[in-house]
């Protein structure tokens, strides 16, 4: 009998994780968004700890398909392509090569977007809401990922410049023909 219960437990775990990835959380309560603002960055502003409400929400911005997809939309809406191209880098640094000048953590990407960085990265503090910055940060992290997440977005209906995020690692296949 416990074999059956064991199997049910496994199915439940798979089910819950699928649930998290596919859930459409359309509205974030204002207090939660405000709480998401308080990121404790290190003195040099590189890494840091996310607010504890982030893990209470079960880390949606790194694993929820809908929020990653919204992040990709924001990437093109706020003209990140202007400096970073499709992740290959132009005036701004590349994300594809997986080398993160300010650290690969989601918090450092969040801090880079929100407060800007010295060498020309503008601060989007007043240009985007906190949820949008988190979604964009979660998406940017998938560009340089070494293994494709299940929730990672697929290609856009645009000209193809590199393999999409769900076919990571993009770096390897970008170099050969």
């Amino acid at each position, binding site marked *: 009998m416990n074999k059956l219960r064991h199997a049910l437990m496994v199915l439940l775990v798979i089910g819950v994780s699928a649930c998290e990835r596919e859930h459409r959380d359309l509205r974030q309560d204002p207090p939660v968004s405000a709480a998401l603002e308080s990121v404790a960055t290190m003195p040099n502003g590189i890494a840091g700890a996310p607010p504890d409400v982030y893990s209470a929400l079960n880390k949606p911005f790194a694993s929820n398909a809908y929020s990653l997809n919204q992040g990709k939309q924001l990437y093109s809406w706020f003209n990140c392509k202007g400096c970073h191209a499709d992740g290959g880098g132009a005036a701004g640094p590349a994300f594809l090569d997986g080398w993160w000048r300010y650290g690969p953590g989601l918090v450092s990407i969040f801090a880079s977007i929100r407060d800007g960085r010295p060498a020309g990265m503008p601060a989007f503090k007043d240009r985007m809401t906190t949820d949008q910055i988190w979604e964009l940060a979660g998406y940017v992290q998938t560009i340089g990922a070494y293994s494709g997440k299940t929730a990672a977005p697929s*290609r856009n209906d645009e000209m*193809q410049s590199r*393999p999409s995020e769900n076919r990571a690692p993009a770096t390897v296949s970008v170099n050969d*023909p």
Partner: protein
Amino acid sequence: MKERVVMQLDALPMHGRGSDSPTMWGTLAFMLLEGSAFALCIGIYLYLLVLAPQWPIGALPPRWPAGTVMTVLLLASLVPNYLVGRWSRENDLARVRLGMVIMSVLGIAPLIVRVFEFRSLNVWWDTNAYGSILWLLLGLHSMHIATDVADTLVLGVMMFTRHGSNSRRMGDVEDNVLYWNFVVLTWLPIYFCIYWIPRL
């Protein structure tokens, strides 16, 4: 209801061959089904061709040597294929065993040539729609070669076991021969599509 016997069936053979064998009709039905899938893929190829301002899109036409070697190889394999069909109809176990070995080799060879074909396409499946339909057409046909070769190998091994001398297995060989003809014949329009339409 009361029954009145009007017909005796015990004189009939225990297994029909050719058009009396249900498995032959089943193979025909599956050929019709897969044939319509191939026709649709060629339809997509021509649909995208008509839409594209320039065809092939952003790529050189595929290098034709590998594809032509494949076509010659497949057409050549029709001869032993026909012989195996005739031997199986004559229930000649020894020759059928030999024939199955030959057909297995002549099934694996195209798969090897197909690797070179994929490399001579000059385009990746994710480069553009032209590349996508090219890889879909070639991939679909390769899958059919692979499944038929697997069928030939299993049937070939079976002919060497005690089950080989059963006329039912000879019927299966006939169906396999029929299906290989289908795999070869569907390759011709695909070959023309992939290698020669871009050069028209």
